[in-house]
């Protein structure tokens, strides 16, 4: 257990991301969203998750990736965070993968500062690189962007 870890994975365009499974509350198909006027553009809206109100954020935008061009519905990766439930909007959901600690590497220094906070590093999987997303980092980055 100490050197192997499970990740829930998803895609943003061609990039492959993973979040530790224990941080993920659930994964949902596209949900009806209520927009929040005056909020940061990263906030896409509010979702009713069985009575719990979850803030959906546009992960692409937060990571500085280009906006999607097609109209396919986005998937929700609902993660637990200190400030209540937050849903990360992503393009596609991948499998749950297991990665060994030995395959982990810190992000290259060339990554810009904002991204450094949100991407903890990469796992060098056989077929591709998996970005390890720091969910708290994503949200901290968010509050800074908002203020």
């Amino acid at each position, binding site marked *: 257990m100490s050197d192997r870890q499970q990740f829930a994975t998803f895609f943003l365009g061609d990039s492959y991301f993973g979040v530790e499974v224990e941080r993920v509350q659930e994964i949902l198909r596209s949900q*009806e*969203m*209520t*927009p*929040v*006027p*005056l*909020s940061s553009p990263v*906030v896409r*809206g*509010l*979702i*009713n998750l069985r*009575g*719990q*109100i*979850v*803030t959906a*954020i546009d992960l692409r935008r937060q990571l500085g990736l280009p906006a999607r061009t097609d109209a396919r519905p986005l998937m929700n990766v609902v993660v637990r*965070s*200190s*400030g*209540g*439930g*937050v849903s990360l909007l992503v393009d596609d959901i991948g499998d749950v993968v297991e990665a060994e600690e030995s395959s982990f590497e810190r992000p290259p220094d060339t990554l810009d500062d904002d991204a450094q906070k949100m991407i903890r590093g990469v796992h060098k999987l056989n077929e591709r690189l998996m970005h390890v997303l720091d969910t708290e980092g994503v*949200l901290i980055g*968010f*509050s800074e962007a*908002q*203020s």
Partner: protein
Amino acid sequence: MVSADGMDDIVKEFIVESTENLDQLDRDLISLEKNPTSKELLGSIFRAVHTVKGTTGFLGYTHLESVAHVGENLLSRLREGALALSPPITSGLLAMVDAVRTMLASIEKTGSDGDSDYAPLIEILTQLQAQEPDSKSQDSQATNTSTICAAEQEKPQATIVPDIAEEDRDEPLPLGQILVEGGQVKADQLASVLNQQREGDPRRVGEILVARGMVHPEEVLEALQVQTEGATSNLSSNNIRVDVGQLDKLMNLVGELVLARNQILQFSTTQQDSTFLNTTQRLSLITTELQEGVMKTRMQPIENVWGKFPRLVRDLALACGKRVQVEMEGKDTELDKTILEAIKDPLTHLIRNAVDHGIECPSQREAAGKSVEGRLFLRAYHEGGQVNIEISDDGAGIDLVAVKSKAVERGLIPQEQAARISEREAYQLIFLPGFSTAQKVTNVSGRGVGMDVVKTNIEKIGGMVDLQSAAGLGTTVKIKIPLTLAIIPALIVTCGGERYAIPQVSLLELVRLEGNGARHGIESVHGAPVYRLRGNLLSLVYLNRELHFDSAAAQNSAQQDVVNIAVLQADDCQFGLIVDEVNDTEEIVVKPLGELLKGLSVYTGATIMGDGRVALILDVLGLAQHAGVISEVRQRKISEDITSAAERAQERKTLLLFQSPDDGRMAIFLSDVTRLETFSRSSIERTGKQQVVQYRGTILPLVHVSSLLEEHRLQPRGPSPETDDKVQVIVHTQNRRSVGLVVERILDIVEDDLATRRPVSREGVLGSFVVQGKVTEILDVDGIIRVQDPTFFEPEQLLTGVAS
């Protein structure tokens, strides 16, 4: 000894119980100071300390025990009359209570009663004990008997009483103890009797005491009765302790249930099946009752917070060398636990301010011709679904000149504005952040330490703070807060295709402009849109513009044929919010917004609508600030408001004025009004003789005010063929039942002190008053409902009868 990590249930129970006991002790000690001879109070204080001491000894907390022990000794001397209560003794005892409290907190945290040595405190308490009774205030016979045995008494007292108590903890109090506490028997007498028993006397304590002539047989009988009563009316059989977390969970579930119910109700409108509709109806009623029931479990009397104030005031007054008397009214006014928690600090702050800065020193008071003792008056009462709390003092009041100059000095307002602003707005300066950072301010202004914090905290829970003061006469701070935060009635409006909820407490009325009115009703003052509402200009705010919906849509809505204005109250100002559509009123469950959206002041939270989608709840105050209406309107309102503070301090009632059938003016207390509704005449149905209308999932009986007043009763008016096909109805709810009062026309809402009155003029009327310069009759709501439906009040009375 209990280990630090494994705090078991006994200890937990002990801490909870003792904490409650200590709070009671504080209160009792303060009352005792006012009434030093009360045997009852002394007895209750002694018992409380004794219980704490006994239990701590049993659990092995030695520090705690030793402190409680000296306290108990001191109290026993007081109880015997060997000592007279003096302020130093009260302070000493209060210090002991504090020490015990600190140690309890330490036990709760670390499992041990800490290492702090309370030797100085113990020393003080022991010294106090040794003091000779004050011969002036002590009656002589008590002194004679008790000083003699005082010396020997200390020891037996300490060893015997715990013995009795610990022998049978769960049993009713031993007879001997009851007699000792009642003062009929001396502790040393009891000790010798108990010794006699131990040495083999088979008789009971009471028998021996009577035989020895130490006590009258009747007194023993009395004590026996106390004993049996104590055994049967055990409180614990009627009460259980419930974890607040458990209640919160329950509350959340009920919230969910309300949502599900709303969803079903919405669905049921498309259904024909009568069984389904009936069941839905029942479900709806039961849900409402359940919701109210659960909410009640969370209600606590305001006394839980107030109870600490007499102690606080005493300590503060002593420290400032003042004399202050606290009076309370409406101690049992109930509030939701979360709200109670939230107002604790602001209230404490206000009390502190009142004693520290409001009430003057005795010499100053005397010079001003007031009684030496200052008066602090706390009052709480329910009004129109809200709780009002007033804190008044009869101190020096607020020096407005000083306040203004301070505000200028602090750069809060420019000099020229300071000269212009009215009295009322000057008071509001105190609430500005940054008004009082320096200590000097408190000396000069007399008030205002951290008042901005008080205001923010109260507003956070949807409340309002108002301050009135009259120089030389005192200051009153008035707080209005909602009963509960979890479920609130709200108006649902649509704007930009999305629904928003506006809390009903902020909603004053709805205005709908159509046709010509819509095109020309909205005028502008130098670009700012306004509407003439009954002769006064009402600032308007376009919700879509505030929320930055795209301007094309905003332009469109400005040229529509219909304009919906929700007249809202934010702080002490009114403004009109223009929305695209007004949907309905609904009970909504307030859910907090996530951490990520906390920074947005225009929303207080979100709720889930009947269709399962999320809607945002507007924060009316935040919205008003966002739109910039607040400061501007406030000033205008203030300039209109020329009534002096002293006048305003009088009792004022809020009335809803309406036109009576014979074209006179009538009114009903706004506190009796649950809601104002308009129904179309076609929606009125009949069950038997009763006119009813379907209303929010229930059947609302209608009562025509016209048909109830004496001279009209013979010719009751049904839905007459009037040109207007709408009826205006005042919904009045009592004991969970509602009735709709059909009135001709609603005129206005006014506040009045109802000074000029004439006795009852006719049936169904409480009396005539002069309101706004016109004679107005006030409707006797209970009376006319009783005439119309004598059973209206009955079922509930039956229910309460059973419950109590």
